[in-house]
């Protein structure tokens, strides 16, 4: 498979000796324009990779903050089509920052897998995370996506034991997303020492870069993860800023300010 922006970004960061800052925001939250401003502002705020959430009415693995974000986006008219447009609008000014589309399968299935892959590539998507498509369902989207040249990024969790891990890794690419606790998004972060033990175990099998997420809310927490992982993922804490904003401008400003603080934490950690 040809190299994607994700592969290139991790290679460059490795050479630089630091971990990736992976941000998650919901497409279309609180509305299209403000959301585009957020996505456009994230690289300057230090984001190395942007996960763009695809809104869905029934996000069964997400906690309240991301559920609310999805509902706000849907109420403002977001769809899969508008999400792809958001990404192609972003690409007009940034051809470098990797974009991962993250969500649930039904909107993609309704769109049609073939047209989706074609349009996602055209929009400038680099990778996919589809929460409700485990390895058992690889034929649905994973294999076609890999063939089309997209990364298919998989989650590993504390329940992914040594027996399960090879199955999870089999058709995954880009990076491995280690969800550090069994739970929904927004749950409290585990001790970094526990995460370190898990990563050591996973690295025996996984050759991909590993980004760690769930529960990271501050620059200091992110720095601790940056020491032991190849990337730190922050979602809920960023998405919450949208709800806290007094208006769209304030929401965008808050989100980007928090991103900058977390990015500083990650960049303070040098590994070579």
């Amino acid at each position: 498979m040809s190299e994607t922006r994700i592969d290139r970004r991790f290679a460059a960061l490795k050479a630089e000796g630091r971990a990736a800052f992976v941000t998650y925001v919901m497409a279309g939250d609180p509305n299209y324009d403000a959301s585009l401003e957020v996505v456009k502002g994230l690289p300057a705020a230090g984001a190395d990779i942007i996960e763009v959430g695809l809104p869905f009415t029934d996000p069964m693995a997400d906690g309240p903050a991301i559920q609310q974000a999805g509902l706000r986006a849907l109420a403002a008219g977001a769809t899969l089509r508008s999400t792809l447009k958001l990404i192609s609008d972003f690409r007009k000014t940034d051809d470098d920052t990797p974009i991962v589309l993250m969500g649930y399968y039904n909107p993609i299935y309704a769109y049609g897998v073939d047209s989706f892959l074609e349009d996602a590539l055209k929009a400038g998507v680099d990778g996919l995370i589809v929460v409700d498509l485990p390895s058992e369902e690889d034929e649905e989207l994973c294999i076609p996506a890999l063939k089309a040249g997209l990364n298919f990024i998989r989650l590993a969790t504390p329940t992914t034991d040594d027996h399960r891990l090879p199955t999870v890794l089999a058709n995954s690419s880009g990076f491995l997303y280690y969800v550090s606790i069994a739970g929904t998004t927004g749950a409290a972060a585990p001790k970094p020492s526990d995460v370190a033990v898990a990563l050591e175990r996973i690295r025996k099998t996984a050759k991909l870069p590993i980004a760690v997420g769930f529960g990271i809310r501050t620059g200091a927490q992110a720095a601790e993860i940056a020491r032991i992982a190849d990337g730190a993922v922050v979602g809920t804490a960023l998405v919450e800023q949208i709800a806290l904003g007094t208006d769209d401008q304030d929401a965008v400003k808050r989100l980007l300010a928090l991103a900058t603080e977390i990015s500083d934490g990650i960049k303070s950690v040098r590994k070579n």
Partner: protein
Amino acid sequence: MTQLNTFRAGPDETGHFGIYGGQFVAETLMPLILELNEAYESSKKDPEFAAQLSGLLKHFVGRESPLYFAERLTEHYGGAKIYLKREDLNHTGAHKINNCMGQILLAMRMGKKRIIAETGAGQHGVATATVAARFGLKCAIYMGETDIERQKPNVFRMKLLGAEVIPVTSGSRTLKDALNEALRDWVTNVADTFYIIGTVAGPHPYPELVRDFQNVIGEETRRQMMAQEGRLPDTLLACIGGGSNAMGLFHPFLDDDSVEMIGVEAAGHGIETGQHAASLNGGTPGILHGNRTYLLQDEDGQITEAHSISAGLDYPGIGPEHAWLNDIGRVKYVNATDSEALEAFQLCCKLEGIIPALESAHALAHLETLAPSLPKDHLIVINLSGRGDKDIFTVADALGVEL
């Protein structure tokens, strides 16, 4: 689905009925679902498991349930001979307990200490709370706020039985959201928790195992009809929420060509109004709650809200095996509106002295179309899936009666 001469072989090894079913869940749950599948397969080979289950069904649930000739309904319609399969007479008042008893034995076999479930009408919640109390396991029931409001007696029942009832305030605050919330709990508490799904939906192996635990309904019906009429029934009729009471009645007869089967979905205010819960008649295939099946959704794949006067049918999906049986045409799926169900509810009370669940009243409602024109020796069996005591407030409200 490799044997072409049977409709009863599904699902295949990957959990599919045709294109429906599958295992669409978050990775956190996958190891557990695989473990559940293994535990279920091994329980099937264990004669002690079967003996324990059938003992409990007899002595605790009160099976077998009668197959009762509904003489006055038969007279009223003046056509086919109508029998009621009296699941309303089970302990806790519905068919739901058949499945709960099977699953809790499985939970204990797997060493789980805590039980969770979703509930709409509260019947599955009550049945789950009941078996959890019986075996001394902790129990949490997720229930939408809207349903808590319209099923108050069942909420209190669950509490009396020692369960924690957790109100769900997300989305439409009904069954679909309760299912989401139960899945979120499960993802968080994988190590010690067993999720007792209440219908033939969810990721494989749930549609299969819930069906197998409900098959006792159809198996008894077959024996009872042979004993009473000396032959098989001609038509089977059942309401469809997720489809477990219907599947339990239908499945043992799927390979009997002479037996016609009809599932009745909830048409709410009418399919044409968009306010209904008829996923086969008014939905399209999609992926939700771990399986591919027919769903109520918009063109962007967002799930739309279901509507039914009956909380137990108020769900935007249907079990994957029904989706398959629909596509291949083995089972026919029709629907009944809120007001048709209310009519049938009252008729059954007055003519038979039986207060049916509003869910079951949807199946009864189809008699009006079906029964009159059929010959007098045509045998219909309706699954009277539950009793209607829980629904009297809703019915009073709909009829404008102050209690």
